[in-house]
């Protein structure tokens, strides 16, 4: 084990969480903070992982947990730094990663990104940065009714392949992976700390989840995983080096991303071969093409192996059933 991941370094935080119900209720939830590397920390919550970068300027928060966990997230961040939260970055539109946007942003402080034009008007809270497709889906996915309150929407978006920030003496690359988990995915590369926050492109505890209705695809997730492998450089004996913070699950390095990429590639190839052989979705599911990985990635009460196989099948087979 490396020192950075030792139990002695983890910081438990007991926090009161405000539930999202109309009549607020309170629950105690412990959010775990683990040092990732350099200036970057991973905070484990009910919505998966948030990433926090600290320094002498400000706090950067990648993904904000579900709404109900935002107070807990803020309490955990407060244990790490007294600097203002200046940037919130969303890796996708998912509520478990954006639910706390409004609360975390309001707890922070605005910093002007563009000197000549400020599209956010009089907002004084922290910037929320995401790919433009995240804003589109949060603000008016049907063209008429927004699914989330305006305060949670990204205030600063990008539509190119990458966006760059320089915060706390560190270069941050925001890298868009098209049509992967969704059509608005961003992974964040903290170049000096050598940490990549992947969002749900990569998980250690469940199969990849890609939502065709939100523009996701198997090919996109695989491209995202291969991109992570391009960026990550391991230390001696394929260990350490670049630290990878998954959307869900534990801190990782390149080897474990390669394991995940291999699994998804193999399952994709198996399902594709079954489709080519004329098998229906039901037949493919009965054949259990993931059975050698289910003990690691199947979530019986969540994103099950059968659901994952169905998603792969539909993605590869198009409209065929």
């Amino acid at each position: 084990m490396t020192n950075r991941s030792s139990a002695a370094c983890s910081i438990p935080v007991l926090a009161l969480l405000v539930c999202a119900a109309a009549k607020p209720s309170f629950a105690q939830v412990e959010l775990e903070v683990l040092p990732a590397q350099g200036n970057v920390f991973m905070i484990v919550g009910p919505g998966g992982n948030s990433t926090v970068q600290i320094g002498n300027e400000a706090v950067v928060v990648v993904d904000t947990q579900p709404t109900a966990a935002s107070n807990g997230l803020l309490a955990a961040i407060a244990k790490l730094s007294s600097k203002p939260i200046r940037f919130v970055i969303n890796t996708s539109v998912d509520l478990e990663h954006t639910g706390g946007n409004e609360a975390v942003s309001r707890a922070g402080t605005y910093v002007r990104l563009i000197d000549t034009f400020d599209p956010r008007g009089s907002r004084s809270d922290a910037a929320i940065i995401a790919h433009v497709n995240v804003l589109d889906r949060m603000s008016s996915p049907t063209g008429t009714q927004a699914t989330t309150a305006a305060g949670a929407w990204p205030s600063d978006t990008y539509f190119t392949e990458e966006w760059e920030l320089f915060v706390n003496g560190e270069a941050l690359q925001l890298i868009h992976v098209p049509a992967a988990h969704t059509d608005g995915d961003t992974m964040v590369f903290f170049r000096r700390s050598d940490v990549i926050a992947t969002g749900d492109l990569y998980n250690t505890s469940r199969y990849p989840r890609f939502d065709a209705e939100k523009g996701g695809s198997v090919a996109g997730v695989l491209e995202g995983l291969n991109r992570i492998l391009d960026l990550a450089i391991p230390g001696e004996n394929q260990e350490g080096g670049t630290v990878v913070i998954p959307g869900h699950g534990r801190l990782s390095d390149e080897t474990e991303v390669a394991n995940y990429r291999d699994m998804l590639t193999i399952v994709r190839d198996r399902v594709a071969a079954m489709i080519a052989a004329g098998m229906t979705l039901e037949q493919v599911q009965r054949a259990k093409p993931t059975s050698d990985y289910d003990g690691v990635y199947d979530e019986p009460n969540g994103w099950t192996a059968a659901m994952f196989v169905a998603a792969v099948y539909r993605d590869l087979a198009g409209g065929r059933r």
Partner: protein
Amino acid sequence: MLAALLGLAALGAAQAQHDLTGHWSQRFHEDLPERGAGPEIGDYTGLPINDAARLRADSWDAAKWTMPERQCEPHPADYGPRGPAALRIGSTVDPISQDVVSWDITVMWMLPHRTIYMDGRPHPSANAQHSWQGFSTGVWEGDMLKVTTTHLKEGWVRRNGLPRSDKATLVEYFLRNEDYLTLVTVVMDPVYLTEPLVRTSDWVLDTGLQLSPFSCIPAIEIERPRGTVPHHLPGTNSFLEEYSQRHGIPLKAARGGAQTMYPEFALELRRLIEGGAR
């Protein structure tokens, strides 16, 4: 005075059994074919594996080791003693109490380094990083050092694709008998094993032994389309039955499983062979 000296001598002798430090030269006689040239494809005999492990191994392609992400992988803690594994064992000692805080082990093949903490520290969070050597803590049980290791990266129980998951726990017993060291490893894997896998390895104290320097830098060995992962689709691996056919071992035995570990399986094996089973 004499009684006191004898008492001190006895104490010294007892403590010697608790000192693992030194260079240890490996004895390779157990399971030599598997540990030397390496196992054959499709040889799953004598391992308590389940169907998930079989499918992983059936899909495995040795070309995996040509991938840049795989070229520098060392053996994990549970398999390391099976490979070329001369050992250098040192210790870190508390300067005041002189208690051993940790045993520090370096293995010859690729020089992976293990630390076995003896100071009672807890194992890390489930969300902490895993590693090839995992996180190990030890306690003495009589003259045996019992070591418990968690946080292992996914590894292998045999070098032909049979996997060991990252959910496995490794329990080991180091037994020193004068100049001989025996290590009993017990792998418990809820994903790929139906029963604990128990193996032993042996070393002899060797004061002249030195570990050779080593470094690994991956390189592109074969140009492939981006994202290519070598593997066999189910039902397409033509090598799987070669082991069974070459050695005249019925496939039921070659496919392994807990029943093939036990002496009673010899009777079943005879029945299979006499019955002309493939």
